[in-house]
């Protein structure tokens, strides 16, 4: 099943299927290891539209909600 990163429950993980966005956004996410095929796990989503915290390659990364909505994850 494919979900947006924002729709994952805390603790749920999966594989990045697509990152929808311009080259700038793609490059910024890539520099932190967020590329298609990468396994990630959502750790937490802060209240009231705050950032989403994910674990990528044993590193925690905080991603703004708008960016997180552009990341499609295959899980389950």
């Amino acid at each position, binding site marked *: 099943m494919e979900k947006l990163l924002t729709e994952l429950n805390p603790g749920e993980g999966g594989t990045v299927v697509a990152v929808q966005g311009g080259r700038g956004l793609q490059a910024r996410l890539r520099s932190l290891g967020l590329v298609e095929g990468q396994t990630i796990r959502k750790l937490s989503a802060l209240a009231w539209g705050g950032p989403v*915290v994910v674990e990528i390659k044993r*590193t925690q*990364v905080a*991603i703004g909600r708008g960016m997180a909505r552009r990341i499609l994850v295959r899980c389950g």
Partner: protein
Amino acid sequence: MGKRVAEEGTRIAEQRPRKHLENDILLVGQPNVGKSVLFSHLTGVRTIASNYPGTTVSYAMGRMRGKGRTLIVVDAPGTYSLEPLDEAARVTVDLIDDAKRIINVVDSTHLERHLPMTLELIAQKKPMVVALNMSDEARHRGISIDMEKLSADLGVPVVSIVAPSGEGVKQLVDACLDLQPNQVSVGNESGHPGHHPHIHHPSPNGRSGSSAEHVHLDRDRIWRRVGELVEKVQTLEHHHHTFADRLEELSIHPLWGSLVALVVIALSFSLVRLIGEFLITGGIGIIGQPWVVLPFGTELLFEKLLLPPLTLLSRFLGPGSFLHRMLIGTLVQGRIDFMQSFGILTSGLFIPIGVVLPYLLSFYFVLSLLEDSGYLPRLAVFLDNFMHRIGLHGYAIIPTLLGLGCNVPGIMATRILESRQQRFVTATLISIAVPCAALQAMIIGLVGRRGIGPVLAVYGTLFVVWLLISLILRFANREFQPELLVEIPPYRLPTARALATKMWLRISGFVREALPIILTAIVAVNVLYQLNLFTYLAKVAEPVVTRVWGMPAEAVVPLLVGILRKDVALGLFAPLALTGKQLIIGSVVLAMFFPCIATFVVLFRELGFKGGLKSIAIMLLAVFCTGGALNLIL
């Protein structure tokens, strides 16, 4: 003048570096891998190193001895890749161009995250060594790396180091000096996609869409290659859940995290107050009367050590003489008052050493703990939502916190923010509504004599001003604000050594650069009083100062002195016999009115001439309105 740039080591402060900076050894790596710590070890130049990405916002240069000659070492700002996405990457690409040898600093605990840039660097065909930093942390986490295999595969030497303790640094230097320094500016055929002048892009007409396509393919190849490499050289043991892991989970939890943030902020402010007050009065307590008072503190020191000889000197000179006025100042009820007399030897020593220094020590101790533990990026993540609502970025909290110590490094740190608009707003807010530790020490010392209420009124007003200006600027500029995207470092126990270095740098910067300005300010005030110039100035400024702000006309003097130093300026309110209301208005207006000269210089340098003028215009409007509003409300 008075720039407290030296505080941050010998950081080169130009926003854009010279096109060419020949260097023998260049340290390159991703943010927060410990380049600055290694740099200090190599050169003996002490720089500020902390546990969050973006500590080094510009590059630092130092010298070391090696092979019988002096080598120039440059610490590049941290960057995730050589794609020139931000200022840090562009600076790094320029520096690599001029480098003879490169040390690529890599985090051993996250090889797969760091090796892509290592491959990019190798493609630059410069003599290079890879330094695997944090190898102690890797051992703790059960990560072992086959360095021989890694070195053979990459084709460059690999050395493991622990930068804070210096373990392996000697071997690293030897390996680096064994490299043949090659000629600067070597062409390069394997593609790295930056706007690098010496890289041949394979696209024939240079501007076709195939160039972007090429970059993408190249990236995929790099990531695949790194995956295989890591598979080959790294073995992982099962990692046990540690206490730090639990704490990390807790501090990003939506509910518990906000509690943690509240507790950390409350604890930090209380601790600053507790240590500061103890160092001044010997009293232990946070609010109101201290619980215990020990025979300790700068007040006692001045009373016991300086008062007797100065009283003798005062009698000898005779009150009213010019020398008495300069050295001792005016007597209050027939005796010297260190806060109010305003002579060079009385207030001139007591304000910086007796009041400001204790608070600076206390503030920077607590700030360094926060910086080194790794909590600050988490706080930024937590506040991001709130900060975006008022038009700021979560990461803006870091420059703002630094600004609570001294506005100068605070404004410089706004470089970690991506957009120009963000930098402008954050820097402007710092210069207007964030009181530096020196000013805060005086607010607590002077306004605090009238109780905790007036102190809270001053802080509360400044906070409201900060909030309102950012909201107004947000609606004035509806440009899209970039979202937060930041790596959160693991919690680390701050080391005493790093803490001591940082405190020493910051405090000695104050003594070296602020002390002369403070003494100059006091001399200037006394000379001007003697010449009766202030009566004239007071007349000119009277309409605003008296009618709008409800202050006595003489208050114009402290406001003008505030342009030199805010702490001295607030001290000048002491002899004016202000009412509680006037003292609150005076403190707020002084905090907001013209930044001190050092901040002024940095503000214009960081924002440019037009940006600086815009910022000053906002300041003038804000201070006029705030003072007037307080006069009506209170």
